[in-house]
């Protein structure tokens, strides 16, 4: 299982912003560093299929042999996490994770609401948030929100993770803790990870290859 980027680029109004090459093996992290405005986040959004005109993408992007650029965004199986956890404020913690549980997954019983709730709860357990499942997301701390966001992302059973400065809003102690959880769960699930960050400590903790984009 790997994510292959071959001359994958994002352009704005025809002007190239950033180009990325490389292969990310399962459980490994590719760190993308660089100053603000070079197009790091746009690269991730482009990979997820979320960029709209005047942005365009080019090159090749393959996940486990699938051509992602020819795949609709909702079928790319790429989990995306932002700096802001962006929990859906109209749902409970459990509701957020249930939203991500795939109804058409390998398990045929997933159309059953109770079964989906069980699965969502098991994902919350992985990040130690199952005891707060009925809470309003707005009442959680920053670290708790990040953990729920991670559980939600993993509940969709992605085949790769895209992290857009996911630890930037956390304080130093919390940042180390959440980093550890994210990287270890990604490794457990065998997911290739592409992480955009400003912080060299993030890249050091990830331990994988580092690509620096220039302005």
């Amino acid at each position: 299982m790997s994510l292959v980027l071959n001359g994958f680029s994002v352009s704005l109004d025809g002007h190239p912003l950033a180009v990325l090459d490389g292969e990310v093996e399962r459980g490994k992290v590719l760190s993308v560093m660089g100053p603000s405005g070079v197009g790091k986040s746009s690269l991730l959004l482009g990979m997820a299929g979320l960029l709209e005109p005047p942005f365009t993408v080019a090159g090749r992007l393959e996940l486990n042999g699938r051509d992602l650029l020819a795949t609709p965004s909702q079928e790319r199986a790429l989990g995306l996490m932002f700096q802001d956890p962006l929990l859906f404020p109209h749902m409970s913690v459990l509701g957020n994770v249930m939203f991500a549980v795939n109804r058409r997954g390998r398990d045929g019983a997933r159309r059953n609401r109770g079964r989906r709730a069980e699965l969502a709860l098991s994902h919350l357990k992985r990040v130690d948030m199952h005891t707060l499942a009925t809470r309003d997301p707005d009442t959680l701390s920053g670290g708790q929100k990040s953990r729920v966001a991670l559980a939600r992302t993993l509940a969709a059973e992605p085949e790769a993770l895209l992290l857009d400065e996911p630890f930037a809003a956390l304080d130093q102690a919390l940042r180390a803790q959440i980093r550890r959880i994210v990287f270890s769960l990604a490794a457990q699930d065998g997911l290739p990870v592409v992480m955009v960050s400003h912080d060299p400590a993030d890249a050091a903790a990830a331990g994988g290859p580092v690509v620096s984009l220039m302005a």
Partner: protein
Amino acid sequence: MLVPVVAGVVGIVLPALGYFPVIGYELWGPEIILGLLAEPGFTRSVMVSAWTGLVATVLSLFLTVAILAATFGTRALVVAERLLAPILSVPHAAAALGLVFLFAPSGFILRLLSPWATGYEVPPDLLILRDPWGWSLVAALVLKELPFLFLMALAAMPQVKARERVMVARSLGYGRMGAFLHAVWPLLYRQIRLPVLAVLAFSASVVDVAIILGPNRPAPLSVRVVEWMGSPDLSAWATGSAGALAVLVLVLALIVLWLMVEVAGGRVAGQICLSGHRMRWADGLRGVIVAVACVLALTMFLGFGGLIMQSVAGFWRFPDAWPSAFVWSAWGDRLPAALGTLSTTFVIALVATVLSLVGAVVLLEADRRGGAPVWILYLPLLVPQVAFLFGLNVLAIGAGVTPGLAIVALTHVIFTLPYALIALRGPWRALDARYEQVAGTLGAGPLRRFFGVRVPLMLLPLCVTAALCIAVSVGLYLPTLIVGAGRVETVTTEAVAASVGADRRLIGFWATFQLLIPAAAFALARWLPAMVYRDRRGVRAARQPG
């Protein structure tokens, strides 16, 4: 939206130019227009329309900017914001009837002052309302248009980063008012320009308020057009069409004049901005401006309360401040007969609201995905109603459409849809688009992203927009009257009809429904999302612009 307006205008231009085969006119010449110009009091009617339109717009805009500058960043602005919905939801005709209740020679204010302060034992023979130059008409228009412009300005504030600009200007030594006027107002005005022009067009061509409060010797041009069009003499239709064309030309001329003054005013304002005057002296006026705003709000609420009281008032001789008794049976007697009118009002409002909400959402989604010419939808607010509704009616009859509920409801959509767009556009754009992006990466397709994420997060704006559409529909007079051919009765057509009679209890009865239906709609619009999301604090924050 372009089609009915343009078709309606064509429908009045042809008869105005002498082509109206139904009544045997195939003149193709200026005779009818020349006949209109020769009508007694025509020039005066045009001048009254132009004057009231311009003065009402200038005063509404002036008070909007003054109140905003005086209250920006204070608790008073929060209070003003909360008072806006109930005032905005009131139909123009009800606001006008409220003014009649307060300021008529036998009105509540003179009753409170008589006889101890005025010496009046009988209502004085004073021309307070329906004055020849339309000051009372201007007052009613200002009371309704000021809250509208105020709301438009508040909605545009986040786009111009008003708070930050005021803070920067104040740190440079500008006073509170000076900071707002120099750093925010020029940008804000650009954002609300279209609503300002809509206010100008509406004020110069209003019919229902002018029937209640406007001068009648002669009446403003739009009222005379309605009279000509309603005349049993079919040839008066041609004069009416020429009159409707004259209203359109007048409004276009006023808009051009406004835009010219705007350019000149912009230059002067630019010079003042560069002069470096800190305008700290203006802060001394804040108290006066807030007091004026309070008086205006109080006038509205007193008028509303008075209309409700009037609907149940028993014998009420002048100068008694209060009725000698309250006659609750007045409601009991009238209500059974009114149920048909009420259900007609509800059905039209609901159909117009549902169609407008769906239309607005489709257009806003198209706008988000690369731009749709949304501005075209504001056209019905810029083109005077009398200038295209009669033409539209002629074309509808020509096409074999029978006047009735369905065609009236569809015509209401022409007016409710622009308001739905105005109300929904800001919140729709302000919702953090990343929620839907995240949903997409979680496997949600476009429909699930829309109905599972966007619609629930937009529940409050959608409900408030629905309430606004109901309020607009309930308040529409001319479209209901013309397109319904007088056969479709709503609470507003009944209230306006009652206003020219002498039965004050009947006026109060219908005006109370005009007040209650929109108020109930807005109350429901606030209550429903609050109930659904009573345990979800973050829903409101998701709609704040980032």
